[in-house]
């Protein structure tokens, strides 16, 4: 059975720190950064990138279309 490995890129300036992507990720990859963007929002980032399977749940639930998702088959 094919396995997937994924990675996501967050547009940190567009992110408003709503944390819905963190909640949506089935593999608990994402978390909020200690850093803030120019608007003062903590943005989300991959905390456990090795666990990302590229399912794009984060991308789907993001209200600001911040997340680009990549995936390969291994």
């Amino acid at each position, binding site marked *: 059975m094919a396995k997937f*490995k*994924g*990675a996501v*890129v967050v*547009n940190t*300036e*567009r992110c*408003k*720190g*709503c*944390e*819905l992507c963190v*909640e*949506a990720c089935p593999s608990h990859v994402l978390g909020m950064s200690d850093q803030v963007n120019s608007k003062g*929002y903590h943005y989300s980032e*991959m905390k456990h*990138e090795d666990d990302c399977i*590229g*399912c*794009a*749940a984060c*991308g*789907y*639930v*993001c*209200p*600001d*279309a*911040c*997340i*680009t*998702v*990549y*995936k*390969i088959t*291994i």
Partner: protein
Amino acid sequence: MTTKDIINPANLVYGKTKLLTENPMHYCPGCSHGVVHKLIAEVIEEMNIQDKIIGVAPVGCAVFAYNYIDIDWQEAAHGRAPALATAIKRLQPDKYVFTYQGDGDLAAIGTAETIHACNRGENIAIFFINNAIYGMTGGQMAPTTLEGMKTATCPYGRNTELNGFPLKISNLLAELDGTCYVTRQSVQKMASIVRAKKAIRKALQNSIEGKGTSIVEFVSTCNSGWKMSPHQSNKWMEENMFPKYPLGDLKDTETVHKGAK
């Protein structure tokens, strides 16, 4: 294979559609509006109808929708979007026309325009954001506010004796012969989002096939108005909104007009 290797355009699975402009959306963090805007833009891109579609924006938080989705737009007066859409569609029958409205716009001040556009079976799609509150003006009671729910104009909770009952407008509209498709969707989790996107596409497809009026109600959150976090709002919505406004198709019929184009 490192993360750097995976991040490559060849491996792209999901990204912002180019029909969503670069303008940062002014909605509150976690607001359902953003997700629905995104889905509508994605559907328009996938259907390849950017040059054939006109949207009618409401008065409400989404008053600036025209800054976010790259199509022709008209800004309607509060509640009047279905009247504008009626004319835009009848005068340009080969175009796709949709309205995007909140609960005050569609079910309070705009009730007559909503009902009569649906009753005439106008070949338009109506996208209805129901978050049971008036967000833009600071969190006042809406026709769809739940019993007991606290808002700025019912600070002790909606009292049915004083304020009447939550208005299940989609149920009313499903009763009208002019509507061909009436459905309730949500966008708080991936599976729901996938279904909601299909509903948007179906509504637009119905409109160009001359089948009558389609209404997609998005049962939504307003975490600012509800005074909760986005995560808490999703839970509150699932526990309280869904029982009153159950998801699913209220109506899905064939063409309502004889001899429709």
